[in-house]
């Protein structure tokens, strides 16, 4: 059932376009290609202590990819209930599935950027490592986190539609507040503690560590991330179920 909903959302999003679902893959690929071109060939940006700009590009994408996945998942998840009114009002099912399916949407850019990055690294970097498999648990944590946020926001959005409107701006702010485009060392040490507790940073950083360094987060931070993501999911589910009986008052 969840798979059916995810498929439904994916198809709806690209309904009527010539290439259809191919866009789900083409869009992030194009986005990442633009980043590669701009930072790798136009600006020739370099990380401190490294001589190729490809290293910077792959570092950037290793963080930006999961970020793309998070923002895509949250956007799709938040709109999931209100944009599928037809389904909600006509089929008796567990509505929780909608934001969860929305969160699954985020896994598409996640996988795409992983493949893109693996290809990029394949050209210049070390051969694939076992640590790359860490991507799987990270994807799961990311999914739980995004699903939790989506559950909360999608339910609130039924009553306060402004949430979906303001969301893109909030995501942009969150992106710049999170060390995605810049290394965390740039931040003053007081703010750095805060950034370390930011789950968005921890998710993107885990991805970076796994792919670029073949390492993982310190155990403490990793445990914190696991608890945080599960907690977000449980809380989201709780809030959704509280509001759900009243959906029909507004849909």
């Amino acid at each position: 059932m969840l798979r059916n909903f995810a498929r439904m959302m994916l198809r709806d999003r690209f309904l009527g376009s010539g290439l259809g679902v191919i866009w789900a893959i083409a869009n992030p690929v194009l986005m990442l290609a633009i980043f590669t071109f701009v930072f790798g060939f136009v600006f020739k940006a370099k990380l401190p202590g490294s001589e190729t700009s490809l290293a910077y590009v792959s570092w950037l994408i290793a963080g930006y990819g999961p970020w793309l996945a998070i923002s895509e998942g949250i956007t799709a998840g938040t709109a999931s209930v209100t944009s599928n009114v037809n389904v909600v009002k006509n089929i008796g099912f567990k509505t929780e599935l909608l934001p969860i399916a929305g969160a699954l949407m985020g896994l598409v850019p996640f996988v795409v950027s992983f493949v893109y990055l693996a290809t990029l690294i394949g050209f210049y970097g070390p051969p694939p490592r076992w640590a790359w498999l860490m991507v799987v648990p990270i994807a799961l944590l990311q999914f739980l986190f995004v699903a939790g946020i989506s559950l909360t926001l999608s339910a609130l959005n039924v009553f306060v539609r402004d949430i979906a409107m303001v969301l893109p701006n909030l995501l942009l702010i969150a992106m710049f507040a999170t060390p995605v485009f810049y290394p965390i060392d740039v931040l003053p040490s007081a703010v750095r503690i805060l950034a370390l507790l930011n789950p968005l940073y921890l998710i993107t950083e885990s991805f970076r560590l796994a792919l670029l360094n073949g390492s993982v987060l310190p155990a403490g931070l990793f445990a914190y991330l696991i608890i945080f993501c599960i907690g977000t999911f449980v809380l989201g589910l709780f809030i959704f179920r509280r509001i759900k009986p009243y959906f029909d008052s507004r849909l």
Partner: protein
Amino acid sequence: MTVTAPVQFPSPAIEEVPAVIECRDVSKKFWAFDRGDLWRVVFGEVPAGSAFSSLAGVTLDVPRGEFLGVLGRNGAGKSTFLRTVGGVFQPTEGVVRLGAQASGIYEFGVGGRELMTGRHFTMRWLELSDVAADDIPKAVEEVRVFTELHDYFERPLRTYSTGMKARLFFAAATQSTAQIYLIDEVLSVGDDYFNAKCLGRLRERLSGGASGIFATHDWASILRVCSSVVILDKGRIVDCGPPQQLVERYLDLEGPPRTLAAFSDDFPQRLEAVSGGSVEWRIPIEVRDNVDVFLGFSVEQARKGYGWEHFIHRDPEKVTGHAGQYDVSISIPRVPLTAGEYQLCLFLLAEVNGVRQVMDVRSWTHGNPLVVAVAASESSVPFNMSFSWSPVEAA
């Protein structure tokens, strides 16, 4: 209309049949939801804003293999009721229990985006109805054949007419093997041909043991499909009973004038006959003025899933021209009816200034037809239609 609410349905006599749909004191409220209410709800409180009560204390059972009709004017709560039974709405109070999987047809265009093709829509519907992936191709093909949309099946929904959408929709929704159908006002859109086809399918599902609820203000289709009816008004059941009687009360027909002529009060309630035998029924009438009075009659039968059929029909004929008490006799030498219950409808007319006016009526539209019980003949079949057949060689 007499209001006795809430009414228990069905009558206790039928209650031994296990109910497939059970509603106990079902209420549904919709809240206006002021901003503060959202936080109240998140913290587990009840909204404080004003509420609209769409259903109030609905209690009923639908036995397996029966269709219940729900009549009511716009805004009476019919759609809310169906959605609540189907699990789309959660009842504010009360319990709904379903004994089987339900398929609901509440409105057109479920999950249908206008850019989808008919095929695509059908697949989506079947997927969302939890049809196993392996069965979908076959089911889609059956839907395609049933809708008779031909090439349009592969075209986007935006090119469809309303009737075509209705076809697609009905076909997809009744394709699943659900045992409960909840149908809201669907048959009112298609053309006669397709409506007949839809009724045919419902009949098929009925004889396959399916049950359901059928909400409409089209009383004629209720008569064709349902074995009992409830009338909803302002979210309450205000009346219930067999369809013929209820439809009349629902229509709130004006009674006949009974001024110049009328059926007498000492009227028989039930007449009897034997299939193929001869019968004579005496109809007492009272003529109150010296006018020409005419009597017409018909023998009809309402059959679940088929509608009602005329078996015998006689145009009004003059019975008298003077005031007085009369017994009009109707005699049928060889009753051309098989065993079963029929209804005798009688129409009494008087001619005033050259125009015939209805004076008194006993018919199902007025909820008071006479019951005619026809018993099976002991000796033989009442009528034989001789026929012969022989196989035709294939060319």
